[in-house]
């Protein structure tokens, strides 16, 4: 194959596919990601789509994007794109600002007619000049008409013909990044097994795009991305929502319990319920309830009856579930509430990530209502933290709130498939038939967890409920001192979980000038920025939290080693407020971004350098 002489060699590249929400950009991006993974690249993806299913065609509101970052040591989907594919003027208008200076933009020039330009909000017929896009390497390709031309003899209907233009663009990108076509061709064969004409058409278009890019080589850059040094093993791509669903199935298997998920569809958490509803082969029972409240209440019922019970939601749903979470706290039943956070308040930004439900998770209930709060930090570690959330809920007889967010829930990355043999056992504190002098609120002295007497067990008939209960017998009690003790016990039970969780670890220098602190889904961006600066010799380290309540035991010890602490969050400062309350002896700086967008490593690095220079 002849290649242009000046091939760009690099460790990583960012590609963004952008088009109308019906243009198939998510699929195009996924296929590119899969092929890249197969040939040994590390990667991270992020789909960015509007909350409307089909916003008016050709408008900025309807632009759907998929960004993928491939290369070595990849932890984020990347800030700015090296290559943007814009299938229409609206896609160009909306996303050109996310392309690196000097980057390449591939346009479907057929869509840049008067109507398309007007719909996208361009005032002239020359978007390049109008938006000063000449800093980019613009490739105008007649993608629609070449697709039509390539398929003219196949007998495919015009609608289907036009629908396959995304594969032309994908073919071009494959040439630019020197990727093989066979994985994608195999995908067509599987996906459209019953429609050979569609398989053939897609293959023709993909190849036509590839050949077109090759022919145009004088104006097309080409990249050579170094393969990642990846640990040996079997890999798969996994999104955060899928990993979350599977983590719970794994926990149920280890605990030898049946998994029950009562839930109500809500963006961006719905995929967890959808995946669990497929997994009846592993005995999972899903209950699509009439509302958020019934979602958690059916789960509380299932937990009372002895299942591993979970419910999945996002911020607005967490608000509706508040009273029922209090019931689970009071009755000390195990369950996990997953909140895939999105922009708020109210309906807010349903498809955009944010970290603004932290305070709601910690305190958003009536009364003193402590629960364990855990946050996952990458798409694949959602598996690990879902598993751990369930383990803690069961072994400590407490509700656990697991926080993820739209960014890691929809984002995906390659994941070295673990073996279940390497995962710990989960021991449910089930009260057995014949237990002598058993009472529902008798506790294990270490954990303070009560035992779980499942209906159907002979001789352990008992009543639980939302009223305060006697410390010993569990019967209803309004005794003032008893209430004080029970309130303290419930709090202490949650605090003691920190005897069972790992200590806070630090990446970077043990004693640096600046300690960056983050939690949850911002890990990829924070770690990339801190590592970059550390490699440049800056005195910087990262402490990233997955356990929010209780906090790991060594927080004070870690914080005291650093001169300056900056807490970075996608909210107005909820975690920093919590740290100021729980560890008031330290001085915290804060860095907050609340735009419905993840941090960029560029802005983080700029800010950290500023703090280091102060």
């Amino acid at each position, binding site marked *: 194959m002849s290649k242009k002489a000046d091939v760009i060699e690099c460790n990583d590249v960012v590609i963004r596919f952008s088009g109308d929400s019906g243009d198939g950009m998510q699929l195009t991006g996924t296929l590119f990601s*899969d092929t890249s993974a197969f040939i*040994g690249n590390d990667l991270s993806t992020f789909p960015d789509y509007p909350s409307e299913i089909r916003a008016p065609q050709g408008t900025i509101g309807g632009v759907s994007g998929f960004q993928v970052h491939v290369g070595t040591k990849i932890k984020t989907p990347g800030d700015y794109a090296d290559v943007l594919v814009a299938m229409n003027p609206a896609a160009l208008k909306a996303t050109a600002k996310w392309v690196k200076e000097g980057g390449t933009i591939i346009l479907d020039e057929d869509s840049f007619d008067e109507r398309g330009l007007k719909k996208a909000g361009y005032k002239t017929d020359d978007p390049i000049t109008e938006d000063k896009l000449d800093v980019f390497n613009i490739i105008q390709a007649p993608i629609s008409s070449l697709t039509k031309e390539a398929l003219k003899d196949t007998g495919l209907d015009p609608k289907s013909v036009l629908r396959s233009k995304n594969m032309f663009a994908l073919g071009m990108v494959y040439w630019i990044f020197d990727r093989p076509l066979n994985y994608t061709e195999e995908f067509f064969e599987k996906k459209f097994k019953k429609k050979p004409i569609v398989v053939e058409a897609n293959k023709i278009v993909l190849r036509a795009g590839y050949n077109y890019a090759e022919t145009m080589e004088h104006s097309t850059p080409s990249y050579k991305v170094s393969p990642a040094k990846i640990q*040996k*093993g*079997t*890999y*798969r791509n996994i999104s955060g929502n899928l990993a979350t669903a*599977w983590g719970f*199935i794994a926990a149920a*298997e280890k605990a030898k319990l049946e998994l*029950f998920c*009562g839930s109500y569809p809500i963006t961006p958490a719905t995929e967890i319920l959808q995946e669990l509803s497929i*997994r*009846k*082969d*592993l*005995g*999972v*029972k899903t*209950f699509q*309830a*009439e509302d958020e*409240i*019934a979602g958690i*209440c*059916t*789960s*509380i*019922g*299932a*937990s*009372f*009856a*002895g*299942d591993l*019970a979970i419910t999945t939601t996002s911020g607005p749903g967490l608000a509706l579930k508040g009273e*029922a979470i*209090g*019931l689970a706290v009071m*009755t000390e039943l195990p369950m996990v509430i997953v909140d895939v956070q999105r922009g708020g308040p109210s309906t807010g930004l349903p498809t955009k990530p944010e970290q603004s439900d932290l305070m709601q998770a910690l305190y958003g209930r009536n009364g003193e209502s402590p629960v364990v709060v855990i946050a996952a930090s990458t798409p694949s570690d959602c598996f690990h933290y879902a598993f751990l959330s369930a383990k803690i809920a069961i072994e400590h007889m407490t509700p656990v709130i697991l926080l993820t967010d739209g960014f890691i829930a929809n984002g995906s990355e390659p994941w*070295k*498939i673990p*073996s*279940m043999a390497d995962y710990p056992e989960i021991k449910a504190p089930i009260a057995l038939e014949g237990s002598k002098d058993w009472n529902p609120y008798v506790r294990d002295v270490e954990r303070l967890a009560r035992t779980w007497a*499942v*209906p*159907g*067990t*002979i*001789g*352990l*008939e*008992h*009543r*639980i*409920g*939302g*009223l305060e209960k006697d410390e010993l017998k569990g*019967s*209803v009690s309004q005794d003032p001192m008893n209430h004080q003790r029970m309130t303290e016990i419930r709090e202490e039970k949650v605090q003691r979980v920190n005897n069972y969780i790992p200590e806070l670890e630090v990446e970077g220098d043990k004693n640096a000038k600046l300690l960056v602190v983050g939690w949850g889904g911002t890990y990829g961006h924070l770690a990339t920025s801190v590592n970059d600066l550390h490699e440049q010799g800056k005195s910087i380290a990262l402490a990233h939290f997955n356990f929010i309540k209780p906090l790991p035991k060594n927080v004070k010890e870690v914080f005291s080693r650093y001169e300056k602490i900056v807490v970075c969050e996608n909210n107005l400062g909820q975690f920093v407020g919590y740290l100021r309350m729980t560890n008031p002896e330290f001085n915290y700086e804060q860095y907050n971004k609340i735009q419905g967008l993840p941090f960029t490593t560029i802005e983080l690095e700029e800010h950290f350098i500023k703090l280091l220079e102060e």
Partner: protein
Amino acid sequence: MSDIQTTFTAKDFKSDQEVRWCPGCGDHAIMNAIQRALPDLGYKKENFAFISGIGCSSRFPYYMNTYGFHSIHGRASAIASGVKVANPKLSVWQITGDGDAMAIGGNHFIHVIRRNVDINIILFNNEIYGLTKGQYSPTSKFGSVTKTSPYGTVEHPFHPGELIIGAQGKFFARSIDTNLKLCQEIFQQASRHDGASVVEVLQNCVIYNDKTHAALSDKEHKEDRTIVLRHGEPMIFGKNKDKGLILDTENLKLKVVELGDKYSEKDLLVHNAEEKNPGIHLMLANMSYPDYPVAFGVIRSVKAQTYDNAVQKQVEDVKSKSSVKCVDDLLRSGTTWEV
């Protein structure tokens, strides 16, 4: 295993908790009827679960020596659904009131009925909020004077039977707290029915809505003002068994007739609780005094697939066909690659 008890009496179902309902409250009688109904149902004591929400009636589980859950206002239908789906072998009972089921819990109530989850719902209807001391409820009669309606309510009440049948209800029965024997009989029928069964019990609140059902419990007149429906039997009522119900085919409504010269027993409607078409059941459920006798007994009892059973069957079916047998299989399913 001689020490394991296999037969039970009503006494076995009483817990050691002091019953705190007001003296004279209808709840006492309803609880007695349930405790008498349970021993004959074929379940062991440990397999009963009583789930309630909030309200006077919802204190019920504390007084039962069974598994019990006194939950939060309005949500017992959802919690009971979770219990039953998690363990279909249990006999699950929801104890609820007119406010708990039809105001704050209205959404869950109609959906548990629509899904046909196999639970028994005992709806204590006293047409008032008792625990909060006397505000009107969704079943309070239009114009009722209560603490929050000092000039009379301006709301149309729900008729529970109509709501339940409208929500695809397959089993609806009605009784009254003063008729312990009928309550006991109906509770057993509700338990034996597979699917969501709702029993509305007209219950007297002696403090905040005393005598609201007095017209129907009055010893002198009750037999003339109520009719006990039994499947397969003609619809006869009255102290002297001298009245009955026919279908006025011209106006498509029920009509009360006197037996005698004009009508004989064979002209009367024969109750068919198992008829799928809800038309007559709805008319029977909606009969109100003084125009009609109020219907007691099992008004509707229609067989249908239950939710919990369907869930179980689907799990078994998919399990038998899938190649994914454990989590290790799952993690390796779909596209994977080796490095």
